[in-house]
């Protein structure tokens, strides 16, 4: 594989946080093998296609949360934005509005939440936990009020194109949902690693004051991260609408926490400045594989929760231990220079 061409490999190994990513990648492989042995169906092409489609929404919200976490903040409103997106889009469609127009309106509404989050945190300087706790509650309220406190009816035949686009259709043999996640991942990964905005996001997460003194605009950069988060949540909401063919007020409940888990398992630091979206793919996959594999294994929900909780704690604990170990090693090296 490309990895073994020496130069890129060396460069790869120097990337910050790569250790955590490689560890959890190994974990993912082991986990998959275990589930595969326990149940041969796990590796059937049908289940793999299915599994990938289940991972896609977690990956998407993981991307959003990673952006926000890397700036050193947090977004608790993700789940509610998913709910808001599905309710607004479905309500509009049941009212006979063209599906794609509905999608556009939905995106604008969701970006409104992202904008509020960004401004509350960076301009009004509210603690991000509180600001997004507030918008989380409000967005859930909007989801509920959208169709007058009921789930919507079916979005109907007119929306079949939309449903295929976001969920049921396949392109080159892969479900569209997977393509959507991959394309958005590629775009947002590119922005994060190759553009000015991406650099600024890492910089403010690492040291906001130093970044400001280097000419980084804190308000616009923070807001961009929250907008990305709101946008991917909106897409997940649209996928949910396409999946269900209707709007459910409860949709997306707790997704903000899944998103934190996927990001953090994948090596994104909640303290900001560190992480990469490649890790988020692994984190989301672990999450999806656990859910899928444990369900097939017939594990009761309780066991699933305990396993997942332990994996979250251990993966961060590992990171802390590795880092402090590395710190110790570093000290020894430096003391000899």
């Amino acid at each position, binding site marked *: 594989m490309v990895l073994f061409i020496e130069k890129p490999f060396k460069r790869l190994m120097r990337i910050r946080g790569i250790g955590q990513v490689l560890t959890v990648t190994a974990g993912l492989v082991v986990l998959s093998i275990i589930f595969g042995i326990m*149940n*041969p*169906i796990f590796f*059937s092409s*049908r*289940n793999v*296609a*299915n*599994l990938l*489609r*289940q991972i896609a*929404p977690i990956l998407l919200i993981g991307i959003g949360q990673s952006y926000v976490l890397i700036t050193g903040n947090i977004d608790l409103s993700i789940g509610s934005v998913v709910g808001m997106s599905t309710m607004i889009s479905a309500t509009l469609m049941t009212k006979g509005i063209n599906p794609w127009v509905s999608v556009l309106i939905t995106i604008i509404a969701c970006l409104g939440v992202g904008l509020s989050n960004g401004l509350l945190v960076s301009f009004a300087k509210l603690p991000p936990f509180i600001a997004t706790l507030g918008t989380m509650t409000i967005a859930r309220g909007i989801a509920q009020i959208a169709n007058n*406190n*009921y*789930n919507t*009816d*079916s979005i109907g035949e007119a929306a079949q194109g939309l*449903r295929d686009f976001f*969920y*049921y259709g396949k392109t080159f043999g892969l479900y569209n949902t997977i393509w959507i996640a991959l394309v958005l991942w590629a775009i947002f990964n590119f922005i994060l690693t190759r553009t000015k905005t991406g650099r600024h996001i890492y910089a403010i997460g690492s040291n906001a004051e130093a970044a400001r003194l280097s000419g980084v605009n804190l308000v616009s950069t923070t807001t961009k991260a929250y907008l990305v988060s709101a946008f991917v949540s909106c897409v997940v909401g649209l996928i*949910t609408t396409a*999946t*269900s*063919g*209707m709007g*459910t*007020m*409860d*949709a997306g*409940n*707790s997704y903000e926490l899944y998103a934190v888990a996927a990001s953090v398992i994948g090596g994104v630091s909640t303290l900001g400045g560190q992480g990469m979206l490649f890790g988020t793919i692994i984190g989301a996959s672990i999450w999806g594989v656990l*859910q*899928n594999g444990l*369900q*097939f294994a*017939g594990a*009761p*929900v309780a066991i*699933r*929760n305990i396993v997942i909780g332990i994996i979250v704690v251990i993966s961060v604990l590992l990171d802390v231990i590795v880092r402090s170990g590395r710190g110790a090693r570093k000290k020894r090296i430096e003391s000899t220079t």
Partner: protein
Amino acid sequence: QGTKENASAYNIYLITMDQMDQHWVNVDKGAQKAAEELGNVNYKWLAPDVKDDAKQIESINNAVAGGADAILLAANGPNAVTAALKEAADAGVTIVYVDSAANFPAVQTLATDNTAAGTTAANVMIAALKENGVTSGKIGIISVNSATASTVAREAGFRKAFEGTSFNILETQYCNGDAAVSKDMSANFITQGVVGLFGANEGSTVGVGNAIAEAGTGVIGVGFDKSDMILSLIKNGYILATMAQNPDVMGYEGVKTAYRALNGEVISPEYVDTGVSVLTKANL
């Protein structure tokens, strides 16, 4: 279609809304019993970790991916799962509804007629109120949320029976099935002076019963579902009656129906009301 543990056996999956209620456990028990009796059936319960449309669809997809020949489904809502079911049907999977149906053709639905059961509950309440000489007043309803089709239907049936009476039914309160929250909401209703309280599921009913037990007033409580807790509330006279469903029948008959359909039999009728029994202190 995947490998089978027993080549000649059928893979039958039960998919419920979540894994939280005793109700689902009883459906599972009935299904297990039937599977054991039939012998060459690989039966498995796939429960989503929380009640969520997307998760239920995932479970359906997982069952299909897992080589299901038949799925027993308790649909979260009538519409959300239809596309996933269509995919399943296209893959040759036989579908049987238990507890709640979706808007997609299946070989059979074995369920409580929730609207009818709601009406039954209302009639029991009206009769009891009349016996006490009460012909008007406020009535409170505690339900799970406005998104669950079965409880929404019970609520609708309940309200329908009160049409034309001089009773006034207040805005429904939703407790998400949490008995403690239901207790608070019921207490608030009693403060508002209701004469009757209806709990639309297990948790709601427990809260109603506890609130009446505490208030000790002549509020008539009627509930839904059967659990040890609810039975003790009935025994002590705090709840007049509960609409007990027959989840084990749904599971048991559901698996048998699926099996027969897989063997090529033509199934009728399309809809089987597994019925509710009105449990009161008298018939316990």
